[in-house]
């Protein structure tokens, strides 16, 4: 505030402060007597002056007002759901303090799902909750996109005022309406020319999202002048909306000075099955694999390349093998991975993927060949090949070690339709139990389809009867809390009782299992209530109710 009384004899106060600082023994303010009473006189005058100064305070001049935040047209959250949000945000990590989890639901674990559900219904976050939401998004990158979507335009407005929340400006795809659209060429060009690296990445991503060609043209215009590590990030943004019209630009990037840029360009081109690079790789890979009919059964023969020539290197094949790997098999794997899967039926006697995968492979090349096909199936999102490589879920090899690792299986499952994914994993659990299923469950849509959910609960029940401790299954149990359909809660009731302990069981395990099942049931009911609080939703066709956990 200001002391703005023009009639104030300001020098008086300054003089009083000066005298007080030095002491009345050395200086006596004008108008007061020196000696023993001088300090009291000084304090009297200072008291009057202090009260006068305070009483005369006026507001100061206002700084320029901030530009108002963009309107958020979304409807407000229902009152009960707003209360829920408070609770969810109050249950920060660390609240548990380790140790046993007890029977109470873990609220922080439910926040991601809750955010997905409110976003699906298009609600706006209550304004006063935005700081807590931004803090949650700052601490947990897994929450970030959903939290920022829910937080909406006002959170970005806030993030511009608080350096702690700058991450929000980078993390929001499309910039939440703050970045210029493709049509706003003047602002786009200015930002692309002068913006910070993070702003330019966000701009490119946002334009690519809406107009793939415009983004590529923007990038091409300044490409030769960009730094190598920037080129890599910019190139990566072309993954969104990758299409055949990108090929000339990507072909050009194959000649880039930076090896990483070349490799990324090659990877993108190989995901375009009709590209020239894909055709070149098809020829190279095709030359390595043939069917041998000389024996009793047709067998695949692999002849790995003998050298990595300049053409292969130009097409993104990395010449130097990692330690412990043979060079020839390293090159071979890369060729098959980058070749379009569509070439193999014609090349291998008109067989379909399933029959090709079933063929024996000579000289221990099976693992290398199948692994490369897996990577190709994931990269080209080919469900037929994925299905063939996965095989039936009940196959003895499916439980591992097998030719295809669990991580690869999980990726392959991701290319299958949602229902088929759940069915395959249910079959896998029924045949092999839970211990290997964790990664596979992670790629299934939430809430779990009924057969999948039942197979998980059945398997947990079997594990309990087998006498092990529930924490051996804590990962799956945690997933079940988040992913099981709340409608299944009633099926758990039979599992809540503490069973009589059989002689060979682990001591106390029955009680811990009962506790774990109680928490599961309570969490499911809580999730059901949380969903109810959000009110009805018009479901979009073919879309799962909630996103992945």
């Amino acid at each position, binding site marked *: 505030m200001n002391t703005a009384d023009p009639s104030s004899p300001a020098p008086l106060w300054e003089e009083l402060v000066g005298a007080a600082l030095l002491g009345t023994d050395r200086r006596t303010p004008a108008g007061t007597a020196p000696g023993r009473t001088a300090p009291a006189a000084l304090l009297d005058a200072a008291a009057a002056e202090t009260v006068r100064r305070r009483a005369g305070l006026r507001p100061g001049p206002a700084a320029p007002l901030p530009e108002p935040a963009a309107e958020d047209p979304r409807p407000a959250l229902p009152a009960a759901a707003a209360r829920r949000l408070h609770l969810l945000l*109050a249950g920060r990590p660390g609240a548990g303090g380790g140790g046993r989890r007890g029977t109470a639901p873990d609220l922080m674990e439910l926040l991601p799902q809750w955010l997905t559900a409110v976003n699906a219904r298009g609600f706006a976050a209550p304004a006063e909750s935005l700081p807590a939401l931004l803090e949650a998004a700052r601490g947990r990158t897994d929450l970030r996109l959903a939290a920022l979507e829910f937080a909406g335009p006002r959170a970005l407005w806030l993030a511009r005022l608080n350096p702690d929340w700058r991450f929000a400006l980078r993390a929001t795809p499309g910039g939440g309406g703050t970045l210029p659209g493709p049509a706003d060429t003047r602002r786009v060009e200015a930002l692309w020319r002068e913006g910070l690296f993070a702003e330019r990445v966000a701009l490119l991503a946002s334009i690519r999202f809406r107009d793939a060609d415009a983004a590529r043209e923007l990038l091409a215009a300044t490409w030769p002048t960009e730094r190598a590590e920037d080129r890599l990030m910019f190139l990566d943004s072309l993954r969104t909306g990758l299409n055949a019209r990108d090929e000339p630009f990507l072909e050009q990037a194959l000649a880039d000075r930076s090896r990483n840029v070349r490799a990324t360009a090659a990877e993108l081109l190989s995901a375009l099955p009709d590209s020239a690079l894909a055709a070149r790789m098809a020829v190279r890979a095709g030359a390595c694999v043939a069917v041998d009919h000389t024996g009793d059964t047709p067998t695949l023969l692999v002849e790995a390349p003998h050298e990595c020539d300049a053409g292969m290197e130009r097409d993104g094949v990395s010449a130097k093998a990692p330690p412990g790997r043979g060079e020839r098999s390293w090159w071979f794997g890369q060729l098959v991975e980058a070749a379009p899967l569509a070439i193999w039926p014609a090349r291998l006697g008109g067989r379909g993927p399933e029959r090709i995968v079933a063929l024996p492979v000579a000289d221990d090349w099976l693992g290398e060949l199948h692994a490369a096909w897996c990577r190709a199936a994931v990269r080209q999102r080919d469900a037929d090949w994925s299905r063939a490589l996965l095989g039936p879920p009940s196959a003895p090899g499916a439980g591992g070690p097998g030719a295809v690792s669990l991580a690869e299986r999980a990726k392959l499952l991701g290319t299958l339709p949602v229902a088929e994914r759940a069915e395959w994993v249910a079959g896998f659990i029924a045949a092999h139990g839970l211990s290997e299923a964790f990664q596979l469950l992670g790629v299934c849509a939430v809430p779990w389809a009924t057969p999948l959910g039942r197979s998980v609960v059945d398997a947990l029940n079997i594990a309990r009867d087998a006498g092990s401790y529930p924490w051996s299954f804590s990962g799956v149990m945690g997933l079940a809390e988040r992913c099981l359909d709340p409608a299944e809660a009633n099926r758990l009731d039979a599992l809540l009782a503490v069973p009589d302990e059989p002689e060979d069981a682990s001591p106390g395990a029955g009680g811990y299992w009962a506790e774990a099942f109680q928490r599961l049931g309570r969490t499911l009911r809580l999730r059901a209530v949380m969903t109810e609080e959000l009110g009805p939703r018009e479901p979009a066709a073919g879309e799962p109710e909630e996103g992945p956990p």
Partner: protein
Amino acid sequence: MTQQGVRWTADQVLALAPDSTSRKAGSKLGAAGPWSGTGSSPEGAVWGLCEGGGGASYRTVVDTAGGAGPAYECSCPSRKSPCKHALGLLLLWSGGEGAPPAGRAPDWAERWLAGRGRTAEERAAGRAGSASGPADPEGARRRAERRAERITAGATELEERLADLLRSGLATAERSGHGLWEETAARMVDAQAPGLAARVRELGSVPASGPGWPARLLEECALLHLLDRGWLHRERLPDGLAATVRARVGLPSSPVGPPVRDHWLVLAQYDTPDQKLTTRRIWLYGTESGRTALLLSYGAAGRAPELTLPVGLALDAELTAHAGAGQRRASLGEQFAPPAPTDTRPAGVTTTEAAARYGEALVHDPWQESVPVTLAAVVPTPAGDSWQLADAEGDTALPFTPAAASRPGLWRLVALSGGAPVRVFGECGHRGFTPLTAWPAGEGAAVRLC
């Protein structure tokens, strides 16, 4: 009134927690999980059984409509009040999920509730009885005289110390450090003048408070001197000012005025913890009288003060003002209904009027640090390294106090505003404005900032 009507929000419940550990522990219990046998009565009682660790089960009952805020009873061994079970139960009650159904209290809860009813009646009867005066008026007068003499001795000694300081200069205070002031403060505690002691202790921190400290130290010394002088010559002061001086020195003040019944809107509630004592301040606004009143409540360190009134609710109750001109302190008397949600907001003023109100208040109480004020329409605005509240219409602004500008509530306020005008209640003084509660431009409930 329906049960739904008086339920609090989770935020309001969590505000009751004595510390952050309890808040977290309470949040975890705020789901139907560990609870059984829960229920609630239309009179505002909530009860339930909570599973504890190791198979124990605790009986928890809360009376949300008590005369002096909610009261808790729990069979758990926790020494915190409210304990995590009481908080969890209230959260359960406040949320939709598994909310305790209406019903009759079980015997164990009923016994405690009935006991409370009796105590309240006895207290009311005691109040009526005490109107006839203390049992031993002569003894009380002698005790008061003895205390006054000790305070006079303390004030005289303090005057001498201030004179010594001014004679040798404030620059010496910077060198002599905290020790000098701590010792003087202890002397004032011995003199039974806690108000003087607190001010003296404040003096000790001024030399380390950054540029401009000599002027601030002189201000505080001068006001302390003014208070000493006021005490030593209190018989020559007008009654109101004399009562203010007595209260500022640290004598207990007591309610004197006639009780005023109103619908009191709870504007703000915040705690200032100390090593030994937690002080809770609750600002109330009479929606009919337009008066603003302050309730004080204390708790020993680690325990939340007993009185709790959730922000945004209004209560139909009687308040009795304390003596002292310009004093806003009051005591809560009879409550006629449990606190209930309301759409009413306090009337507001401009920044210029707010500063003028502080100036006017100094006339009656020159030691006033700040006054409670509602700003009608202001925009939180960044100004250099700090923030201010700028009038939506007009070009003046009040700066945030340095403490307020570094609290998380600042960002809740900025978020609520989004660059648009909001209504803000807070404390306006010579250091600036401390926002405590805000209301959005359109519809919407009060948002706590403290």
